[in-house]
């Protein structure tokens, strides 16, 4: 039982400990300074409230386990479309970028002569092998990957917080503020608490993971700001390497190198698991000739092929990938809004209160996604991405319904 909860926690951490989350954290810590920890607390609190609703016993009680969790709000077809769009875009786009990051980290930190893309493909092959071997192998590996990153970050953070600080302590000359994008951006950092089949028994462990994430992020923020000038953190594309290097020198760079590689594996493996579990629940998507063995493996194989082709054809070197990664994350926030709304409506069936705070939380998630979209430099591309992803997912879902008429809910 404890084992399964540990795996749940490690899945919640899968994106939180990824290299891109650390870049977002480092950049925002540089922009906000120490007050950024207050923004982190707001993001963690909103995420915890959202998770608390999704895993509320009254919200999960009637779940059949075979329908998308937000079916109750927007209907089965729309809910399945959103699930397909969110999970597939996350499972393909984020690993494409972060496996490449792992390749560069390995090349620049450990073995200079080893081709970076070669290492990215080795990691992709390793994760695919885990999924082909079976779900249990992938879940145990997830625990290992996440554990390594948390250990490395804690080690560096504690060394940074309790060790000697260098000349730029907390960047006294830098102007600090907590603008709205910074607060909205923290919602991105805590994503991952939406398990495919929410179980109210897992609620306390999900909340524990969010609180753990907040503590880890806060420690890393304090350690980074104690050793690196905020303006440097804010503008760097690899703030974690700068922080680790300043905290522990070359050993720090090696430790963060291990964390980045493990974090890339964590996000790839974790998103594969979450996507696979979510999509397996959509039984209408599968042609009847696919047997149970292949049903469990077809998505990881498909994701791996898509990621491999993206890397081969240079998509990782394209700026568009970064926009699409942000788009996938914003879709994730919006999906959280839908799930929160669905959970609130379910809870209201058993509780007769006229207004529930869940409506406010879901509205905040929608508004945060919208705000981050319209304030981005690539708003048009983001909207195109949303439309394209939802239309393709809608066609796939409709195709599945053509062959397998869904049973009444």
């Amino acid at each position: 039982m404890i084992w399964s909860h540990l795996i749940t926690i490690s899945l919640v951490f899968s994106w939180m400990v990824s290299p891109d989350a650390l870049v977002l954290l480092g950049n925002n810590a540089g922009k906000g300074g120490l007050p950024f920890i207050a923004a982190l607390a707001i993001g963690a609190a909103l995420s915890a409230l959202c998770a608390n609703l999704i895993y509320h016993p009254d919200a999960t009680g009637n779940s059949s386990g075979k329908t998308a969790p937000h079916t109750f709000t927007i209907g089965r077809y729309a809910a399945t479309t959103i699930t397909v769009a969110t999970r597939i875009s996350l499972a393909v786009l984020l690993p494409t970028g972060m496996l490449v990051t792992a390749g560069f980290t390995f090349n620049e930190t450990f073995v200079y002569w080893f081709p970076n893309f070669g290492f990215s493909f080795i990691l992709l092959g390793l994760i695919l092998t885990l999924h082909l071997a079976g779900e249990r192998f992938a879940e145990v590996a997830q625990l290992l990957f996440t554990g390594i990153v948390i250990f490395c970050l804690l080690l560096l953070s504690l060394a940074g917080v309790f060790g000697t600080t260098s000349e730029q302590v907390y960047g006294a000359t830098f102007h600090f503020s907590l603008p709205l994008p910074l607060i909205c951006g923290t919602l991105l950092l805590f994503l991952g608490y939406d398990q495919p089949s929410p179980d109210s028994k897992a609620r306390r462990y999900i909340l524990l993971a969010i609180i753990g994430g907040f503590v880890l992020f806060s420690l890393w923020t304090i350690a980074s700001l104690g050793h690196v000038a905020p303006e440097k953190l804010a503008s760097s594309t690899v703030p974690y390497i700068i922080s680790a290097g300043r905290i522990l020198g070359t050993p720090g760079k090696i430790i963060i190198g291990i964390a980045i590689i493990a974090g890339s594996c964590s996000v790839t493996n974790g998103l594969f698991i979450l996507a696979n579990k979510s999509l397996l629940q959509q039984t209408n998507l599968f042609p009847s000739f696919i047997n149970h063995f292949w049903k469990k493996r077809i998505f990881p194989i498909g994701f791996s092929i898509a990621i491999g082709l993206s890397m081969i054809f240079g998509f990782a070197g394209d700026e568009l990938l970064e926009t699409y990664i942000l788009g996938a994350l914003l879709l994730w926030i919006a999906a959280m809004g839908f799930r929160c709304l669905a959970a609130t409506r379910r809870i209201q069936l058993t509780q007769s209160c006229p207004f529930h705070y869940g409506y406010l939380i879901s509205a905040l998630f929608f508004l945060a996604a919208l705000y981050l979209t319209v304030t981005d430099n690539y708003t048009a591309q983001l909207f195109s991405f949303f439309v394209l992803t939802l239309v393709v997912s809608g066609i796939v879902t409709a195709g599945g319904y053509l062959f397998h008429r869904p049973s009444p809910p």
Partner: protein
Amino acid sequence: MKKIITLFLFCIIFSAMPALSGSVPTIDKDELKALLGSDTLVLFDVRTGRDWSSSGEKIKYAIRVDGGDLSVAKTFPKDNTFVLYCA
């Protein structure tokens, strides 16, 4: 059989394209190190997207050229030494 031969020839020509594209002089990292600090050296970092952003190795004072637009080179005297690095 014809198809196989055609495909084989295509592969040969495709793989030989870099060699056929003309002679662009290259330098190794030691030669570049010796040039660093020179007033006539103009260094362009032509890595794009994550190739650039994920890398912790960025040469100081290198001009980042994104999207292959090298028009900025026109602003420098022609007799300068232009070096492009991509990895």
